[in-house]
Each structure stands twice: as structure tokens, then as C-alpha cells.
């Protein structure tokens, strides 16, 4: 199982409540593939973390990890 947290305003891309989804583990699953599944472009993402560590979008995910996704931001 992989837990994905859609943080801040990315929760608008998750149908219903809450902003957390559980995905069945599949070998070679990446954050990029999860984004595609939820209609998000890579450019949406300002920060992706796997178990609290900064991650790139193409790194294969292990079973049991928690993915946190934050929207991009720059220039307030």
C-alpha cells in the first residue's frame, strides 16, 4: 500500500474527502504516474516527499511509503 497526501490546495484534485488516498502497491510505480492518474501536470508540483525526504518524480516507490505532494509556489 502507498499513502499519498495531497497537501494544501492540491486536495482539490482528489475527489471527495479527505486529502489522503491509499493506492495498491505496484512495482515501478512513480510519483509521475500518480500525478497523471489524478489529472495533475508535473509543473503543478513544487515539492514531492517520500517518507519525509525530498524525492524526484521518477523514483520508483516502495511498498508502504507515504508520499506528500505540495503545489508549486514562487514569488508572493
Amino acid at each position: 500500500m502507498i499513502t499519498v497526501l495531497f497537501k494544501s490546495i492540491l486536495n482539490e484534485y482528489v475527489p471527495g474527502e479527505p486529502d489522503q488516498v491509499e493506492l495498491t502497491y505496484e512495482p515501478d510505480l512513480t510519483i509521475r504516474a500518480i500525478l497523471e492518474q489524478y489529472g495533475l501536470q508535473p509543473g503543478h508540483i513544487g515539492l514531492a516527499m517520500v517518507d519525509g525526504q525530498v524525492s524526484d518524480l521518477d523514483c520508483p516507490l516502495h511498498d508502504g511509503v507515504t508520499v506528500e505532494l505540495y503545489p508549486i509556489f514562487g514569488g508572493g
Partner: protein
Amino acid sequence: MSFNGKILKVDLTSSEVKVEEQPESFYRRYQGGHGIGLYYLLKESKHDVDALEPENPLIFAPGLLTGLRAPAVPRYVVISKSPLTGALGKSEAGGYWGPELKKAGFDALVITGSSKAPVYLLIRDDKVEIKDAGHLWGSETGPVQEKLREELGDKGTQVVQIGPAGEKGVLYANIVNNLAHFNGRNGLGAVMGSKNLKAIAVRGSGKLKAKNEERLKEIFRWTAGQVKEHPLSSMLHKHGTPAGIKTVNAQGGLPTNNFELGVFEGAEELASEDYSLKPKGCYACPVVCKRVVEVNEDDIVVDKMYGGPEYETLAALGSNCGIGDLKVVAKVNEICNRNTLDTITLGMTISFAMKCFEEGIIGPDDTDGMELKFGNKDVLIPLVEKIIKREGIGDLLALGSKKAAEKFGPESKKYLVESKGQEAPMHDPRVKTGLGLQYALSINGADHWFAQHDPFFAAEDGFGVIEMAGLGLTEAVDPLDTGMAKVRLIYYTSVLNSVYDLLGVCVFGYVARSLIPLNFLLDQVVAATGWKTSWFELMKAGERAMAMAREFNRRQGLEQEADKLSESFYRPLAKGPFAGKITLQEEDLNDAVEKYYALAGWNKNGGVSRNKLEELGLGWLVQ
């Protein structure tokens, strides 16, 4: 055309009002905004004038496209010498005033001299009057706007003004139009106050007519249709800039406790939308990114008339002072807006004083007995009121952190976070090094919109790389890189942002931060003017304005030594993903600054070379 061919000049010492006509070739060369503003600043100012002397000109200049029914081009610049930094003062604002000045028939307003008694300017089309403002002096911005509109019998009058902080000469007082749109930085409200000029009320009955109105309408319709679909503009539209707090906090770059920590435990509350009533926007802008905030509780009331805190304010007065109480931050934002104070420099000056207090460099005897500790929300409102009134410790802190450090002593200077004497905005160069280059190179002191921001260019499928490939930025650049790839990114996009400022563009409407693409912007310039122009010509105009700005600073004695960062930025962050790691080295940053000079055609001292000035048609600046 999108311009009127007329510049209004007012001398407050002699009460003389003149209109100077300019040919089309002037606009093709200097466009609008800071291009026109710098032209007049360089022509009219003496080399060694003090910023608060009558001889320092104060110039208001809308962008080339401002005033047209075109999307997200509402901006005008205020240009002068900054009393905070002694360098160029340049600050942009949106809202409604810039378009109104264009409709009144003027492309810029150049104010010189100083009135003996408080006055305001009234511009109704070509009728210009200098009027007594004795009854307005000392009043806050809300009542002044209401009184002026009532006196003039016209609710559509657009008022740009200063509040009591500008009258009192707080060196980071700003200028506001429509109560919530600020020329926020560089202390230009103090310059306006030094001239005894309380407000400028404008009403125009004209209409700018583009050469190709249909093309402008097409782009407007496209923008309005896409705002809620595009990921970046929809975020701005639905949530405004405060939504950025959570991302920046997770990245470990949220300025906390005077830029020491990078992560703030109260970030969730600061990002809350609990008190946000509705979005509010600027002239002809479908993005509508600003928030209106109202608090009606027993302990705190925040008046919705003054807008609401943006990301910069939430971080500067919130996390950076260790304060996570959103109601208190919203209240201080309202107080600042009523009195016209730059919330960034204010927050940074307070956080600097808090750090000095915690380190024992200053004590209660220096602070009128106030415990200036991070997180002490009880001191925030009384301290800000003292600064506005320039009472006690407030009189010193009204000068900004760098001048306060002179009084606090040499030990305090290592806690400054500034460049050219202006306090850093709420973006940490230790998590995105491009901001370090921006702060060092920005001609008007640390500025977060000198160029575009690193995160948009961090991946090849990021919005920045996709949208700006046409400028030659086709590759991803690591946010922590300081090599030539980063220098090129900052150089190209600093010229682009200069073009944006010439045209009156808001960065929250256009790429890479938002949705409107570069080819549509070029189309709008062609549609507005009928010129057979190109991005090459626009980028040269951007370079030209930057060269003029750089030349102004050279005349003030500022060269390479001014393009430095405070040592605080070279110490590691204490919390978050980058805790304990040195991610920005002084030697690398200084090397990157020199590379930037080389790309820009500037000499090793950071001055613009004679050849570059002549190439840009600025031979008149060659001594």
C-alpha cells in the same frame, strides 16, 4: 494608441504645472513604466541630492499597455531616489490609479520641489490643480479617500496617497491607491511626505484606443476563459498568495525568526482562509488574486476596507517574528495599510530587533521596556504604533534595520538580512539560489521580482521551461545551482521582468508565474501600438531600462561592492530539509554576480560599459 504623447510636470515649490509632449519615437525607445520614469529621473535629478530634499523628483509612470482593456496590465511605477537605501527607488503597484492617469491624458507625472504646506493634486483630464490638504494631513488612508471622493462629488475618482507614516518620514513608508494596492518598497511614501504631498486624485474621461481592438478582445476572452483552468492562475484566483505558505514551509524555506529556521510550527494557522471573505482584483484583470479579510471578534476587529495580508506580509510579520496568530498579523496588516507602511521591511526590522534582544545586544532599556522576543505577539501592535508615531524605540526602528544596526553596535550587524540597505523579502536564497542573485543584483535593493523564480525551472516539464523555451531557456536548472545555467536563467528573466515593468504587466497574470504566454503579450503590444515590433526589440528595451537604472546607482556611488548579500545568507538554516547544510557559498554567489555582469555587457565594477550604453541608444548618458 496606448499612449497619449503627454507628460505632466508639476513643481510644488513654484506651483508651476506644465505639459511636455513626446513623439512616438520616445515611446518606442522608453515604452512606459520605469523606462519613462528613469528617463526623467536621470534628466531631472542632481547627482548628490538627498532623497528627502525637494530636488529629488518623484515620478509616477503607468506601463505602455496600462489603461487598455487588456488582461493583467494595470501597473504603474513610482520612481525616485530611495531614502531607505540611497539607491534607486522603484516600486510597482496594480489597482486602478495607473489606468485612470492614462485616461486623463497623461503617460507619466513628474513631481519636483516641495510645497510649504500640505497639498494634494487634483487631475481632471487636462485640468490640473494644486489644492490645500490641511484638512487631510494626519488622517489615515480610508477617511482621506472617502473625504476626497465626497468633496469632489465623484466616487470614481482614483486616489493615490500616503498615510501618517509617510508624513512622519518613516523610511519605509509606502504609497497606496484604492486603499489596498501598494507601491510597497523603498520608502517612496517618505519622499511624497517630504514634499508635503498628501494625495493625487485623478479622474479621466478619455479612452485609449488600440490600433487593433479586436485582437485585444480575443486575448482578454481567452484569458478570462482559462483563468480557472490553468493550474497556476486557478490557484491564485481561488486562494491568493497565502496558499504558498505551506509549500515554502515544507521546503524548509519559510523565513522564521529572522531567517534562522526555515520551518515554522504555526504555518498552518498563517495559511488558514478562516477570515478570508472574497477575492478582489485590479483593473481589467480576470485573475483576481487579492483577498479581502475581515475579523469581528471580541479581542480583535479587522476592517475589510483595507484588503488582507498577502504571503509576504504573513511571513514577514508572522513566521519571521515567530508569531502564528493570524488575527494579530491581519490586524497589523490593517494598521500598516491605514498608515502606509511596507510590511516586509517592517517585519524584518522587528525580527532583527527581536534577534538582537534575544542575543543580549539590546535590552529592555533600549526597547521602552518591551520584551522583544520571537513569538511575543503582545508587543507587535504597540511597537508598530510607536514606529508610525516615531516615539521611543519606534523612532529608531522607523529607519529600517541597517540604520538601527548602527545604533545597536557592530555585534548586531551579523544578524542583518538585506542588500543595498533594503531588507529581504520572504524567499530564502538558501533553498533557491536564484533569489540570492536577484537580491544581490536588484538595482533597488533586495527585490523578489527582479527575475523569475527557480522552482518553475527545476524540471524540464516545469511551466518555466515549457513557456520560456522561446527565450532560449530550454533546460532545467537545479534550484541550488550557482553556475552559468543559473546565471543565464536569472539574466534572461531579469530582462524579461524589466520588459514586464515597461508594459505594466503583473507577474500574476503572465508566464512563468501564471497563464498568459509570451506570444500573446507581444501580440498585445502590436495590437496596442501598430508597431511591427518583436521580442528582440522588447528585450532590448528591457535592457535599456536596466542600464539606465544601473547608471543612476553609479551616480550615487554604488558599484560592485553594493551587489552583495548579508552574511546571514551564508549560514546554514537551523531547521527543515536543509538544516545544518551550507547551500549557498559567498564565493560562488560573487562569482555568479560577475558572470551576470559579463552577460549584461557591464564592466567588472558592475557599471554599464560605454559601448553598451551607445548600443542601447543611451549615448546621452555617456559622460
